[in-house]
């Protein structure tokens, strides 16, 4: 089974508005994104809010373009482009947070997009807890995830938190256990 099918099936088996920690190897990153945005979100008719602190949103948008995934119902909160001082063009589907340390503003941008896209239910993807952990201490990151996940749950939105197993620490594992309803492992078996 492909990684895309595996992730798609595992997500579909989960309850509505679940908070999911998606643990994967870095090599499965783009397959997992495809499974979430193209398969899962489409099937459930969800508006996706993709929070990226790992790579700039333009890189993900380019990858989605190659994968022929339409952006109509996908929006980005990009908290890495500004800090990189990259002169990259701003994309109409991206809004920007100055730095991944501005977790409060990140919550505000998610809230803004939820209000702007109020027709459908939402799926919020946090990519990734590992990169957020580079810029934030465990205390504030746990507090952020706890508030965000509970807020999204109240709005009947799905939350998927990416975690790259290669970069996981014990603190990160504890955090994921604390805030998520389900831990989904991407096995990627042939």
């Amino acid at each position: 089974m492909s990684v895309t099918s595996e992730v798609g099936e595992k997500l579909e088996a989960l309850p509505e508005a679940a908070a999911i920690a998606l643990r994967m190897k870095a090599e499965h990153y783009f397959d997992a994104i495809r499974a979430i945005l193209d398969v899962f979100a489409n099937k459930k008719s969800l508006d996706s809010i993709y929070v990226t602190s790992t790579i700039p949103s333009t890189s993900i948008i380019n990858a989605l373009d190659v994968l022929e995934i339409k952006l109509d119902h996908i929006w980005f909160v990009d908290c890495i482009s500004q800090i990189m001082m990259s002169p990259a063009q701003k994309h109409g589907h991206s809004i920007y947070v100055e730095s991944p340390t501005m977790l409060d503003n990140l919550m505000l941008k998610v809230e803004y997009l939820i209000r702007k896209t109020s027709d459908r239910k939402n799926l919020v993807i946090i990519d990734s807890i590992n990169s957020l952990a580079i810029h934030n201490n465990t205390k504030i990151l746990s507090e952020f995830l706890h508030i965000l996940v509970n807020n999204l749950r109240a709005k009947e939105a799905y939350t998927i938190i990416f975690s790259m197993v290669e970069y996981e620490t014990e603190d990160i594992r504890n955090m994921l256990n604390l805030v998520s309803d389900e831990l989904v492992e991407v096995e990627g078996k042939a």
Partner: protein
Amino acid sequence: MAPREREQDEPPERDRCITGIDGLDNILNGGIPRGNTVLVTGSVGTGKTSLCLEFLVHGSMAGENSLYISATEATAKLLSNIIPYDFFDRKLVRDGRLVFIDLPVIYDKLGLEKLEFEFEEVNILITALANIVDELDIRRLCIDSITSVCYRLKTQENIRDFILKLGSMLSSRGCTSLLVSEISPAEERYSLYGVEEAIADGVIVTGNLERRGDLLRTLQVVKMRGTMHSRAKYVLDLTSVGVLLVPLLKGGSVAAPGG
């Protein structure tokens, strides 16, 4: 205590003026108690005017005639700089449900040319404002800013007298009002003269908070008579869907107070 006795002991719940700003209504446990005079205080660029405008826009949309009195900025300029709210309809202005008046125009009409107001001028100004509120059936009012009026009052006694009379006049008409107060970032009190916050029914403080080099806009309700409310600090964002608020993350990492 039996439930019936407890009901008799508790003061009746006051009617609320729902601000329409979800986060603020949650903080205030349902909105500002109707008729309260609330000081909105903070340094420049912290969102005071946006907060007030949204309060008035939501009021006018809900059928409550709303009045914005601008003391420092001409209405035309203010409207050109207003955030393009998704929910704002210029018809509200055309229909007279949302009214903008420049305070210098009121001064001119009243012949208040002196730079320093005495007791008599204060009374003339209050009477004029009362007439406007009555004529236009105003239910929500904002004066932006009260600091510029206080500049002309000079003494703490005159300021106290003005705000007491203004609050009493508006409250007796069921008009809920926001008075904007400008303070410098380093100020340790909530108003320039230290009088306004003591007399107002409520104090909402906006500010800037620097945390590890990031500058956050914050909001805190310090006082609000007539309701239980949160006194925690929140982070705010000014957006096209209105003012958004989330709790300020503490995380043990707040390095420098600033707002």
